[in-house]
């Protein structure tokens, strides 16, 4: 079966050249078709994600989930979309109309843009730019802009507070994420996502950088604003945060953007640490690579959902402490240790290299846990001491009697 994508590309080349078009125009037409196909496929997956989300959350909560429309309720998300499309669109008074309408478009479009650099298979990649990781960091941060725009333009206090929190959270978790993403870049000596996947031919990077993998996963969840980091849309405090004033399809776009963002970040983590499209036979049959890629991405997506429905929401001070006092120092330590060991282990057997780096990561993890344990012990002692605020108030001097 070979490689259908390259075959189609070559066939298109021949067909368009046969029509007498200029080579530059052929490139543009092919890019247009590629963008259209990629975006359509990703949006179809997005609709499917609505079903996955509803079905899996139902299972986590011991319910059945949608099961009426079609087999296993598979047609349910299409019904959801139709419902959202025919709902009335309410714009609150005093909203900044242009920004208000642009925000949901921004939220979904930036997530779509991320798919341009994710390799689905050896040849099925939108474009293999050599600064892929920086592109992901940059475009990923643009999604935050959509949320800020939504919060600011809604003319609503809760939405604005949600936007503040979003800024604090996204901006903070960007730091350990960028440092943790440096580790696979350093191991692969390249910023291109496809080059990083290619560099994992003998072992996946999760073996040599498990802590960086965990850091990337945790910061990804924070970037998504999902539980336990969903204080940007805490129902009990600020109703729904930035999307409080959005109805109908505009809300739907935020929802779709969030689900797709989760899958996108899962895909990126899978590419950087779990070998992306790599698997038995993926080189010779590129379509098999797509299967492997989505299997890994959906596994990570499921892990993110598992975390979401298992953990309670954290407070904003806990969120910032976790980031600045734990994740950031840890990511710096991991980066320094990885860099030094990588330079020290030049020319050794691959298995020695993997074992030493794995051992170093385990040592770092053990030391971190010990430090955390002693800190927690101190914290418990501090709490156990009687606090002045807990003392009963002094009895008032009675004016009666005596």
């Amino acid at each position: 079966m070979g490689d259908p994508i390259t075959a189609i590309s070559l066939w298109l080349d021949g067909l368009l050249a046969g029509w007498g078009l200029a080579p530059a125009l052929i490139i543009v037409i092919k890019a247009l078709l590629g963008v259209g196909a990629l975006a359509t496929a990703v949006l179809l997956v997005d609709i499917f994600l609505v079903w996955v989300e509803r079905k899996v959350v139902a299972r986590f909560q011991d319910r059945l989930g949608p099961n009426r429309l079609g087999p296993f309720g598979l047609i349910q998300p299409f019904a959801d979309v139709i419902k959202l499309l025919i709902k009335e669109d309410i714009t609150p008074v005093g909203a900044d109309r242009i920004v208000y309408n642009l925000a949901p478009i921004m939220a979904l479009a930036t997530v779509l843009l991320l798919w341009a650099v994710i390799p689905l298979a050896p040849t099925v990649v939108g474009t293999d730019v050599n600064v892929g990781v920086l592109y992901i960091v940059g475009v990923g941060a643009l999604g935050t802009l959509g949320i800020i725009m939504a919060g600011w333009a809604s003319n609503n206090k809760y939405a604005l507070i949600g936007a503040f929190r979003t800024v604090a959270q996204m901006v903070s978790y960007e730091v350990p994420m960028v440092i943790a993403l440096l580790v696979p870049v350093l191991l692969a000596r390249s910023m291109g996502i496809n080059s990083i996947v290619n560099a994992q031919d003998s072992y996946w990077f999760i073996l040599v950088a498990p802590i960086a993998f965990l850091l990337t996963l945790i910061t990804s969840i924070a970037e998504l604003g999902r539980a336990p980091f969903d204080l940007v849309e805490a129902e009990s405090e600020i109703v729904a945060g930035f999307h409080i004033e959005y109805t109908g399809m505009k809300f739907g776009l935020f929802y779709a953007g969030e689900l797709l963002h989760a899958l996108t970040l899962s895909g990126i983590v899978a590419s950087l640490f779990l070998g992306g499209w790599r698997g038995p036979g993926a080189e010779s049959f590129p379509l098999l690579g797509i299967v492997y890629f989505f299997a890994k991405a959906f596994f990570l997506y499921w892990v993110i959902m598992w975390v979401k429905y298992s953990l309670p929401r954290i407070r904003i001070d806990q969120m910032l402490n976790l980031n600045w006092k734990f994740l950031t120092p840890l990511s710096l330590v991991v980066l320094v240790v990885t860099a030094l060991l990588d330079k020290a282990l030049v020319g050794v057997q691959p298995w020695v290299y993997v074992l030493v780096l794995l051992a170093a990561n385990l040592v770092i993890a053990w030391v971190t846990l010990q430090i955390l344990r002693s800190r927690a012990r101190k914290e418990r002692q501090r709490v156990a001491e009687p606090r002045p605020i807990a003392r009963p108030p002094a009895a008032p001097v009675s004016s009666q009697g005596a």
Partner: protein
Amino acid sequence: MLNDWLFIGIFLVLAPVFPALALVIPRIIAPRKPNPLKSQTYECGIETVGDTSVQFRVQYYLFTLVFLIFDVEIVFLYPWAVAYEQLDLFAVVAGILFIFLLVDGLIFAWRKGALEWE
């Protein structure tokens, strides 16, 4: 190389079109019956008091400032990581020293109390 960025350029133009289309369809088929009460700002049923552009806490600003310093410095490490194969010991130590400057900045901010949320 240029073709890669052509793809991203076309994607940049087309990506907003898909969500924008999804917003155009409701304009045609969805009902539009706004009334003054319906388009009020939602605040759990209570009327909004005062200006909705509330002031933000100064801590948000501090954290953004710390982020700015960190992010700009870390981006400089990416070329260092990409060229790691060709680096000699001096360049590696220089990079590590640069990371220690980051750690120093973190410790400074920590001791200054810039990372405390009051």
